[in-house]
C-alpha cells in the first residue's frame, strides 16, 4: 500500500478501490480516482488514464470503458507536476465469499 506521492519517485504503485471515473476533455482519456490509505486514514489518488493504458482483468486485456466504480485496482502510475499518469492497471478479483 502506498500513500499519495509527496516526493518525486519515477513510478508508484497503488492498490485501492476505483471510486470515480470522470471523462476528460482530452479525447478518450479519463480521470480516475482510486481510494487508498491505511486504517481509517483514507486518501484518493487521482490519475489520468489513456485509451492506450494497458488494462488487465483476469489475465485478459480490457478496455478503459469497461472499468466500473467499486472495482479493486492495482495501478502503476507516474507522478508529475501536471498530474499523475496511469501506466498500467490490473483489475483485482475477490474470492467467492464477497
Amino acid at each position: 500500500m502506498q500513500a499519495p506521492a509527496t516526493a518525486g519517485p519515477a513510478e508508484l504503485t497503488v492498490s485501492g478501490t476505483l471510486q470515480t471515473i470522470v471523462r476528460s476533455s482530452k479525447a478518450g482519456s479519463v480521470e480516475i480516482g482510486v481510494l487508498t490509505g491505511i486504517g481509517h486514514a483514507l486518501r484518493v489518488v487521482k490519475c489520468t488514464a489513456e485509451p492506450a493504458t494497458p488494462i488487465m482483468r483476469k489475465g485478459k486485456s480490457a478496455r478503459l470503458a469497461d472499468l466500473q466504480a467499486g472495482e479493486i485496482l492495482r495501478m502503476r502510475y507516474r507522478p508529475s507536476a501536471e498530474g499523475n499518469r496511469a501506466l498500467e492497471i490490473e483489475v483485482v478479483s475477490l474470492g467467492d465469499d464477497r
Partner: protein
Amino acid sequence: MKRGWVSLLPAVILAVSPALTGCRKAPRPGDPLPGLTEEQRNLFQAGRKVAAREFTPETGLGPLFNAPSCGECHEEPVLGGRGDEVETHVARLRPDGVCDPLADKGGPVIQQHVTPALHQALGIDSEPVPEEATGRAVRTSPDLFGFGLLDAVSDETILSYADPEDRNKDGISGRPNRFVDGRLGRFGRKAFVPTLLEFVEGAFVAEQGITNPAMPTEELVGGAPIPPGVDPVPEPEIDAETVAAADAFVRFLAPPAPLRRAREGKRGEALFARIGCAACHVPVLKTGDNPVRALRYKGVAAYTDLLLHDMGPDLADICLGLATPSEFRTEPLMGLHLMTVFLHDGRAKTIEEAILLHGSEGTAARDRFRALDSSERAALDKFLGSL
C-alpha cells in the same frame, strides 16, 4: 537480618506460589499477555509510554485531531481501556451502490479539534462535516484488550463462519467486509481494517493528526489541504520505531479475564447458546500460526465472528467498504464487565437494552430473549456481565 528474612517470607511465598502450584494468575486489565519474551515485554512497556504520551502541535499533533494521546480515549480502567469520548464518522452511499467514505472531503473520520494555528488560519474549531454525507455515525472508544489475539485469527477461520447467502436458513448471513484493496477486514465497528498494525498507523493520523511512515500525509480539512505554515513539524511526524512500539503495546495487551461465574452465570451461558446469540457472538476463535509465541494457536474468548451482520434500520448509520449502513461487525463481548455503555454508539445504557435493540439478523435471538422469564433474563445478564 534473620528477623528481616522471616518477615519477608510470606511475601516471597505469595509471589512464587502461582508458579509452584502451576496456577497462572489471571491478567489484570492493562497487563501484557502471558508468555511474552523479555524483548516483547520491553517493547510493550516502550509502547505503553508512546500510548500515554501527550502530543502537542510542536511534536506533531494535528492540525486536525480528536485527542492528543492514545490514552485520552483509551483510559478506563487503565491505559488501553475504553473511553467516554465519542467521535463522528461520515460516508456517502452513492446511487450506484458504491460507498464513498468521502476521503477527498476529509472523511470518514471527522476530527473534533484543531490546533490554535489552524483555528487562526481558518477560524474553525472542528473539521466541517461534508455536505455530501448521506450518513453520520457516532462511535465510542472501545477497550483494546486482546486485540492482538483477534489480529492473529486467520482469514480462513473468519471466512469459515461466513454464510452470505444464508444457505443454512437460520436467518443469519454473516459476510466479510473488505478494505479498499480487497483484503479481508476485521477491525473497527464495520470490520473495515485488515490488520492491527494498520489500525494503529491509521489511528495516529485520523485520531491525532500524527503522520507516520505508512501514512505521511495529513488529513484534508473539508477537502482542502492544510494551509501553509500551520503544521510546524515535517512529515512523517513520528518514526517507524515509535509506531512499532505503539503497535506492540496494543498487540500484547492481554484479553480481560472474565469474572468468576456462579451457578446463575453458568445457567446464563447455556441460555446464551440456546437462544441463538452464539450464532454471531462465536464464543471462542482460535488464532493461527504467528511469529509471536504468546499469540500462536491460542483460543480467544472474544464472542464474535468478526463478520458483518445486518442489525436493522434503527441502528443504521454509515456505509464503509462493503458494509451497508445497517451492517455492523459482531461486537466482541470480551471485557463486557468493564463497559458502562453498549453498542457501537453507546446508546444502550444496559446490556438488556443493547439486546433489545438488535434487529434484522438479530431479531430471532432478540425475540427469544424477550420470551425468557425474569429469572432466565437475570441469568443471561449475569453471564454477559461476567465476560
